[in-house]
């Protein structure tokens, strides 16, 4: 069915205000932007998916679209279905520390609401106003507070999702402990829209810190080594750091950024512990911020990830021992090629990202360069017996390079089983495929 024909079908179900176009997604062989539907109710979303099933159309689910570049382009999509108009907090139980929100609610809105009730929302993601809670969960996007709060999938208590036949399915619930039935919400978190359209998520909340502190240590040189060593000293302490980040902006020196948040007395004690450890590691004297100033600095560090622009981002993650060696190798290789990336390392999580500035900043990253990097790093991602695997992923890679790069990493073990699950849950292939590793 042609795009105009699809638009006509959509217009039969939605008002003009609920229709649009997705210009940023370029599909091979497709001219022009993709029609976009943004239903205002769950019932409308069901009707759209029923229509897709009946007409043999292929749907690309999304929230606000902030993470489209995290995935390979789908093999086919006839229209995009956004949850951006499905907004609202359905239930917030301050006395229970749980919440359910419609998928199109922004992360910022949810965070603000629960802060008023004495809770912090995790994941503490970059640019929370530009991210929907449903899209964040579907992308499996953990936050800047992951060291303290754990991965986002551990905080998802339940979901409601619409399947490829337009049926609303429930998994889990708004309970902190529940083993009733299969945890399909564990499948939904990180499924990238390959299985269903998430319309509601239930989450466990954390206590809002009484006091926030931030420490920033600026190192004289550009090398990451001293910052990583100081970070290791901190991570060995019995303290619950909110985040520990080693970063370096292009042309600048390296920095160690530590965020602390909790009961006031505990946070101050942890600050003292950190200061002693940093002095023992012979780190330069840190800048120490408290309260609002610490909060603002944390947000700046957090939001830098998205705010850095549309340069491709290479993300490496794994278990600490192997990952830290891989991080040093990738960093050295990029520098050797004349790149001066924004690099951010979370040593406690063994993950790092490089916003790979193009060699000529005015020009986009070339496919040729991307191909060279992919070849250089492909060996890193190969798993050796007895070794924990490393995962290399690209985000926002240039369109013409995406075919060269395994955007979400190599096909994972169990890929065939994943495909069977996908076929069981979406036998008609209503949800766009080919975006996830293993061809999902």
């Amino acid at each position, binding site marked *: 069915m042609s795009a105009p024909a699809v638009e006509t079908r959509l217009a039969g179900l939605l008002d003009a205000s609920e229709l649009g176009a997705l210009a940023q997604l370029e599909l091979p062989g497709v001219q022009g932007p993709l029609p976009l539907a943004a239903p205002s109710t769950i019932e409308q979303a069901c009707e759209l998916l029923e229509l897709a099933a009946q007409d043999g159309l292929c749907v690309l689910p999304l929230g606000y679209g902030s993470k489209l570049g995290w995935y390979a382009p789908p093999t086919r999509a006839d229209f995009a279905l956004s949850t951006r108009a499905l907004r609202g907090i359905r239930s917030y139980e301050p006395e*229970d520390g749980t919440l359910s929100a419609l998928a199109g609610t922004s992360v910022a809105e949810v965070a603000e609401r629960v802060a008023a009730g004495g809770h912090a929302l995790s994941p503490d993601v970059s640019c929370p106003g530009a991210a929907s809670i449903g899209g964040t969960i579907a992308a499996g996007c953990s936050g800047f507070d992951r060291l303290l709060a754990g991965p986002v999938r551990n905080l998802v208590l339940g979901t409601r999702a619409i*399947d490829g036949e337009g049926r609303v399915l429930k998994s889990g619930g708004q*309970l902190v402990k529940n083993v009733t039935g299969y*945890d399909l919400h564990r*499948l939904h978190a990180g499924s990238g829209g390959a299985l269903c359209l998430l319309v509601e998520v239930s989450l466990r909340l954390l206590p809002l810190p009484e006091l926030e502190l931030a420490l920033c240590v600026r190192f004289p040189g550009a090398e990451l080594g001293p910052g990583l060593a100081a970070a290791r000293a901190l991570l060995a302490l019995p303290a619950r750091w909110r985040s520990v980040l080693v970063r370096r902006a292009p042309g600048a020196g390296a920095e160690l950024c530590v965020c602390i948040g909790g009961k006031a007395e505990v946070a101050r004690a942890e600050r003292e512990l950190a200061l002693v450890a940093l002095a023992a590691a012979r780190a330069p004297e840190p800048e120490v911020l408290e309260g609002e100033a610490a909060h603002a600095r944390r947000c700046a560090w957090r939001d830098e990830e998205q705010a850095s622009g549309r340069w491709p981002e290479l993300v490496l993650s794994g278990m600490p021992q192997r990952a830290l060696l891989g991080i040093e190798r990738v960093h050295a290789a990029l520098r050797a090629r004349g790149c001066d990336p924004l690099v951010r390392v979370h040593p406690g999580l063994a993950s790092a990202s490089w916003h790979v500035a193009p060699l000529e900043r005015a020009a986009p990253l070339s496919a040729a360069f991307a191909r060279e990097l992919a070849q250089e790093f492909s060996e890193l991602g190969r798993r050796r017996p007895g070794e924990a695997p490393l995962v290399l992923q690209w985000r926002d890679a240039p369109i013409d390079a995406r075919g060269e790069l395994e955007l979400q990493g190599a096909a994972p073990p169990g890929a065939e089983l994943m495909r069977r*699950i996908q076929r069981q849950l979406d036998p008609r292939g209503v949800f766009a495929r080919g975006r996830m590793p293993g061809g999902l």
Partner: protein
Amino acid sequence: MTAPSLSRATLIDELRRALGPEGVIAEPTRLVPYESDGLAMLQQRPELVVLPRDTAQCSAALRLLHRARMPIIARGAGTGLAGGATPARGGAVLSTARMRDVLQVDAQDRWARVQAGLVNVDLSRVCHEHGLFYAPDPSSQQACTLGGNVANNSGGPHCFKYGCTNQHVLGLVLVLADGEVLDLSGPTLDPVGLDLVGLFVGSEGTFGIATELVLRLLPEPQAVETVLAVFRDLDAACHSVSELIAARLEPSAIEILDKLTIDAVERSVYAAGYPREAEAVLLVEAEGSEVEVAVAMRRTREILNARGAIELRSARDAHERKKLWAGRKGAFGAMGRVAPDLYVADAVVPRTKLREMVRRTVEICRERGLRLATVFHAGDGNLHPNICYDRRDADETRRVLEAGDLILKACVDAGGALTGEHGVGLEKLAQMEYLFSQQDLGAMCRVRDAWDPERQLNPGKLLPMRVCMEARSAPIEAPARAADAR
């Protein structure tokens, strides 16, 4: 399921060849211990029991059982309380009892790779020399296996702080029903693609058999403080829990025992020094850095005193702490002194509904003339109403089952679920439709079919059979309106 291609006699011979004579039990008298798990009222003798030594033997056994079209029921220590390890008629039990090795401990990255039959508490014992421990601590941890914990997504008192099993599994080696080995052992902090490991945890032996587990370890806390709070009133004890949670305090465990339980524990080998005149005791523990523990406990004591605790006792040392916990964890066993049988219900509600649920449970049992002892993981809203009875008394048994069903209905009506940690198994099959629609259950059936298309693994458990048959045979039908959805 297609017809078997292996006779029973050939099957047993082939199994003995693959697993060794010690790996197969086929003599009827030796099959008796495998007839049930902790839900003793449901029993079925298996056709045979296989005990593989490792992944390769497990794969070989499953290939043969698959050819023989025999249902396969995985069993760890058989401590489950929902009939999850109760054999199916004509089925084989696959026991992990011979797979008990610790394969690797990575102290730097804090994980351990173990075989599924390792007893829960033994992992922490092994890791102690590295200053590490494994956090999920079900009450049966002296006996239950880590593989069984994975199958049930087991919790325990300290999962209030540390989370249940699904937050501690970094990888798995699985064997599927046809013998295929699926190596998802990573270890990884994040899955690539779908979270198969997360989905597998809690699948109650219906997806595959986990033979090796890669588990997250945590540093042993610098400080621990355990306080026993004594109350004249169970309701006041429950209210104080709500206040602790509302105050955003983060103790590592909050447990309640009622008077009948206290009495049973103190008359048993698990006697912990709980005051027998108390109507309820609250066991609160905080772990972490010294400052963290001091702050948490100071505020906790303030709340407990304000809520009417008549006494607060701190464990003075590790020995006293261990004793206090032994009393709590031995509670179910201690109830054996009170009645010949115990129906251990497992109910879970939002923490805000705990008091209401406790009152309703007491009412339901009183109306039926049943003796009730309650123990709960109060911090998680997970109650265990333990109903005393004698299974030889058919009428009493009927009343117990009726009470169990009403308790579950009350939980669901209060916004809760059917099980906080014991699983659905056989026990709660009929109640699944209290909580889930036909479409919800149909989706679960389809996911199960992706893992085990012939439904050989633990058939008849977790999902009502009727719903699964409909999910498989029905053509794609017009979907229900969203307004019909729950």
